[in-house]
């Protein structure tokens, strides 16, 4: 294979008609380029969306209560009920695969009235009574001070961790935040930390305007007793929450004496399922990338095959001479196949290099102009490049096969007679 004379001949043949060779290789070049660009665009979209999910624990569901629609065990229809703090313990015992169960109570909400006062500044914010584990499920960066801990829970400390949005509205620019007090619905809480959530989509501002206080302090301050507004439940990796959610919901129904067929009483949202939908979208995108790219590549390969047929036709007489001089048919076949593979690989490599430059350029532009929604760091991994190379070698073989066959099909005597 690494025979100097053979390679010299391959180069001689391919360089004898530069224009044609370049034109032919353009087909393969273009195919690989399209393949790489499509795959990297898909990857960019994937990266962007993944970044929007951020570090949020995706194997998570949310569960809350609504009024019942069926009478059950002597209890009336339309009954309102709440989860209790004991439910957390019940769930943890029943489902050891669960990693975090964060009960939460909440004040305010979208379009709510002003509920927080500091000096002469007021604002309307979401105020959450939370357990410290929530930071594992909804990651945020603590920019000053600290987050809630279990001592705060046990001691029912009236402290608060506020978002940067809250800080900007309630405080002057260089004012010290830590240790100051804010009044939430008439109750004073000491600010012990500030956070910033990393999101790049539209709800970014809303996400920074939240206040986290210890669950127990919240319950006491705002008269919630043992009530739990809703729960955020994360399972261990390897135990999809989607498989468990109905069991959890049914458990809650039986604990709270809700008719098993009452579909409205316990509401839930399965983040994992949504995430998987997006995941399957990524799969579909890379499939489309491969599909379209390979089809474009195929037309390039047909071009190569076509040209190789013409080359063989042109060299019919030469092949006849060679065979008269004693070259084996297999050697001629190998020559044609190598020429074809060489042509496809060289042009494919050029396509890969160009594709890489293109991706590099796009990344440079993205870096220069700041982040774009749902698109980030388009790239292809080495596996794709390796796959592309395998496809190229294979397609070179494919492209050369018919021409090589036709080169040795003609008897030498007939080949010699051709002019």
């Amino acid at each position, binding site marked *: 294979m690494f025979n100097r004379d053979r390679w010299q001949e391959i180069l001689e043949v391919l360089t004898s008609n530069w224009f044609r060779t370049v034109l032919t290789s353009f087909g393969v070049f273009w195919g690989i380029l399209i393949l790489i660009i499509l795959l990297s665009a898909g990857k960019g979209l994937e990266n962007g969306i993944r970044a929007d999910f951020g570090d949020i624990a995706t194997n998570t569901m949310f569960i809350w209560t609504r009024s019942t629609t069926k009478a059950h065990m002597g209890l009336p229809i339309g009954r309102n009920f709440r989860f209790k703090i004991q439910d957390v313990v019940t769930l943890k015992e029943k489902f050891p695969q669960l990693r975090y169960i964060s009960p939460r109570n909440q004040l305010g909400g979208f379009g709510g009235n002003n509920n927080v006062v500091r000096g002469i500044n007021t604002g309307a914010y979401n105020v959450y009574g939370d357990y410290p584990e929530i930071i594992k499920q909804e990651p945020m960066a603590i920019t000053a001070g600290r987050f809630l801990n279990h001592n705060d829970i046990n001691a029912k400390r009236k402290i608060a961790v506020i978002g940067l949005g809250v800080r900007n509205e309630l405080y002057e620019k260089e004012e010290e935040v830590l240790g100051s007090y804010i009044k939430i619905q008439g109750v004073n809480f000491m600010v012990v930390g500030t956070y910033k959530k990393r999101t790049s989509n539209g709800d970014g501002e809303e996400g920074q305007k939240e206040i986290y206080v210890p669950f127990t302090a919240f319950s006491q301050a705002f008269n919630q007793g043992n009530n739990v507004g809703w729960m955020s439940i994360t399972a261990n990796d390897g135990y999809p929450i989607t498989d468990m959610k109905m069991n959890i919901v049914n458990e809650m129904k039986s604990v709270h004496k809700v008719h098993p067929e009452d579909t409205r009483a316990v509401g839930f949202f399965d983040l994992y399922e949504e995430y998987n939908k997006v995941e399957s979208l990524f799969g579909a995108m890379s499939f489309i990338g491969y599909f379209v790219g390979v089809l474009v590549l195929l037309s390039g390969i047909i071009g190569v095959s076509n040209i190789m047929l013409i080359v063989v036709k042109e060299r019919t007489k*030469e092949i006849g001479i060679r065979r008269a001089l004693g070259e084996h048919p297999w050697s001629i076949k190998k020559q044609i196949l190598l020429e074809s593979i060489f042509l496809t690989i060289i042009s494919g490599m050029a396509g890969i290099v160009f594709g890489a430059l293109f991706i590099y350029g796009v990344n440079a532009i993205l870096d220069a102009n700041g982040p774009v929604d749902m698109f980030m760091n388009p790239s292809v991994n080495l596996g794709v490049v390796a796959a592309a190379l395998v496809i190229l070698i294979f397609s070179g073989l494919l492209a050369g096969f018919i021409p090589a066959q036709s080169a040795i099909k003609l008897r030498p*005597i007939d080949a010699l007679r051709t002019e």
Partner: protein
Amino acid sequence: MIEIKDLHKSYKMGSNSLHVLKGINFSVEEGELVAIMGSSGSGKSTLLNILGMLDEADEGEYMLDDIPIKNLNETKAANYRNKFLGFIFQSFNLINYKTALENVALPLYYQKMPRKQRQEKALKYLEQVGLKEWSHHLPSELSGGQKQRVAIARAMVAEPKVLLADELTGALDSKTSYEVMELIQNINDQGNTILVVTHEPDIAQMCKRIVHLKDGVIVKDEKVKQVRATAHV
């Protein structure tokens, strides 16, 4: 060297069958210089092609140096052609993007001889045909006579048992033809067996034996007194 018995060959042309060779019996000794003469359509090229294993006979026996040539597959035929036969064609049939030296070295390449050895040997044969200084020229830079000399060197380089020449002077003017024939005679003088197909009587006269072919049969097979080409040059 060559033994042929009752050789038949016919070509199918649509529904017609053209009987080209109708029972050829003929043998060539080592060191002979034989001219095969005949008008066009007499079957002389077909005979040469069968001798050159480029074509196969329908019937009859062919022995080359006591080896029966029969039922060859392409690979085996290629091997035999490479080892036993040297071809010289009317239209030279040099490969036009290879230099004279590379052209001459081709048969050795097919024998998988190492590059260096191959080039030395090719150069030696180029020197023998008087074209050592032209070894790195492409065929397009050579005259007709020079091209045919390169072709002769190429036919000789693998040291074949028999040289087969098909109208080797057909594309040359008479002066060049005689020069080429002089070279052929010299090669024959060294003991090589050569078969020349021609329809030119003066070329045939420069051989040692003339076989006349007409309508697929040998009509006359005679030894002649060789005319040395040097006399004409």
